[in-house]
């Protein structure tokens, strides 16, 4: 059993290293130009944001529409700190500060609102994110509606790549741990979960806080990569864009979130040349996919080397 686990983990590590080397090679040989690199980084940041949201929506079953608010906290933490301390240390520190503030904000927002359920929770979290945005919009230190400019760029694609791997490992391991089983039990039946001794408030909050923390990381990377942030970058529409990635990939499937982030990122880049028509095509594609594949691209399917290895073993034995 442990050997198989080691094998599966080894394979994942291999995939990560091969992926890194492959992108490096493509950048080096010039196949990936700055345009495609921009697309890759955007996809990476969206993966970080969307896996956190999928943990909240897909695994703990809490419908949050306020992800952009926590992203804004991370982005502004990085933006403000990097303007005074423009070093790598400052960048790392700003990510940590962003995570801490986002966790505090998530607890403040989560404790009262997570008692609500379904659409009411969605609206309450949306309202909370809007409040965060309006506050940022009116603060001196954040430079109000104009936002921050000339943020030093530390979030190059290797940084984003490594953080995508790290956040995904943390979230997937959380989802498969005792905590993950607890939040999935709450999602499936809160009363039954409570009856067997799972504290719903505690675990719902844990998932919400972890999701918010990854959103802050995504926000930090966004701020340092794009180098310009404004409160209007973190509105309701941005939360919805992340929600679309999660639902399109399949609620409760991390593999699906990866796939949807990549598909949408590529679609967005390909459609750049269509001008205004771009969003029309995007909207039609979205409606068509939802009407014909209501459970998202992958449903709840999860790709896992452990399962593949298991199947192999069984076939060998037979």
């Amino acid at each position, binding site marked *: 059993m442990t050997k198989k686990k080691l094998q599966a983990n080894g394979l994942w590590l291999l995939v990560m290293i091969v992926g890194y080397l492959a992108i490096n090679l493509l950048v080096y040989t010039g196949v990936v130009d700055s345009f495609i690199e921009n697309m890759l980084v955007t996809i990476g940041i969206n993966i970080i944001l969307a896996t956190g949201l999928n943990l909240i*929506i897909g695994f703990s079953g809490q*419908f949050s529409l306020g992800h952009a608010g926590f992203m804004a906290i991370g982005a502004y933490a990085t933006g403000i700190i990097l303007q005074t301390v423009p070093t790598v240390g400052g960048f790392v520190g700003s990510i940590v500060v962003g995570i801490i503030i986002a966790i505090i904000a998530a607890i403040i927002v989560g404790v*009262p*609102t997570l*008692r*609500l359920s*379904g*659409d*009411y929770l*969605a*609206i*309450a979290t*949306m*309202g*909370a994110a*809007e*409040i965060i945005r*309006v*506050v940022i*919009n*009116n603060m001196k230190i954040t430079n109000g509606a104009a936002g921050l400019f000339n943020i030093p760029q530390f979030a190059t694609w290797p940084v984003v790549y490594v953080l995508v791997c790290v956040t995904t490992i943390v979230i997937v391991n959380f989802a498969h741990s005792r905590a993950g089983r607890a939040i999935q039990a709450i999602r499936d039946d809160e*009363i039954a979960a409570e009856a067997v001794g799972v504290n719903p408030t505690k675990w719902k909050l844990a998932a919400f806080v972890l999701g918010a923390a990854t959103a802050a990381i995504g926000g930090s990377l966004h701020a340092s990569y794009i180098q310009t942030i404004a409160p209007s970058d973190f509105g*309701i*529409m941005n939360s*919805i864009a992340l*929600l*679309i990635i999660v*639902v*399109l990939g399949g*609620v409760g499937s991390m593999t699906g979130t990866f796939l949807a982030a990549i598909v949408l990122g590529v679609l967005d880049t390909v459609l750049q040349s269509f001008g*205004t*028509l*771009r*969003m*029309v095509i*995007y*909207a*039609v594609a*979205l*409606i068509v996919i*939802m*009407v014909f594949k*209501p*459970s*998202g691209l992958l449903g709840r399917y999860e790709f896992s080397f452990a399962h593949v290895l298991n199947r192999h073993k069984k076939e060998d034995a037979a």
Partner: protein
Amino acid sequence: MHTAMQQIINGLSLGSIYALLALGYTMVYGIIKLINFAHGDVYMLGAFWGYFIINKYHVDFIVALLSAMIVTAFAGMLIEYLAYRPLRNSPRITALITAIGVSYFLENGMSYLFGANTRNFPQVVKQHNYTAFGINISNIQLLILVTAIILMVLLQLIIQKTKMGTAMRAVAVDQEAAALVGINPDHVISFTFGLGSALAGAAGVLIGLYYNSIDPLMGMTPGIKAFVAAVVGGIGSVPGAAIGGFLIGLLETGVQAIGLSAYKDAAVYVVLILILIVLPSGLLGKNVKEKV
């Protein structure tokens, strides 16, 4: 005192627009449990139809209003038929994403076809200002208020007195049971979308008259505010949506009047969260007990 009265008048006219929109949200939510994100864009369609028909055929206000209501009613029914009906039995979050897709489609489709620029709404009703006891009130504000109230009374009559209204209430309570006693839920849901969209279309023409400018993205913010109004009033409750709409309108103008206009949106959401925490199903919403 005068300024307070003045703000109440302004708040009521803004609130009646929110109320008209909130009614559409609340009826649709009450019947199929869908947050119809495209509702704000149907309101935009209404405003554009009014703009088009007044500029092209120089019709008067009443014709513009009624024709906009008919056009948006059909638009709403078409949206329901094409985008939401195939998803009647799928997860609610899927239907929600589809609604967002429809909203994007309407906003960007209109931008693509007619341009994204802001345009002036033709002033079919000449503005007069009346002053009584030091309070300014324009005939347009009165018109908005009176039209909104007439439409709400009509809606209440349709829901409470007609056969279709009874069917709507029946489907909202239990769709399967309603189908068993011979109600076709598809017809009823279609009618509900038509009714709600007609109110949104009317609100669109009224706001065009009031603010004098329209653009393809005009539906986004009022749409979300109106949904908040519906939630505050108790989603699914028709009088609740009307009360919620007026409340949000008054709150916004009130916060603006005391010099905190930068925080008016935040104030709306703070009130929303507070009300949801104290009364989880809104002011007039029914509190559904959880069954084990």
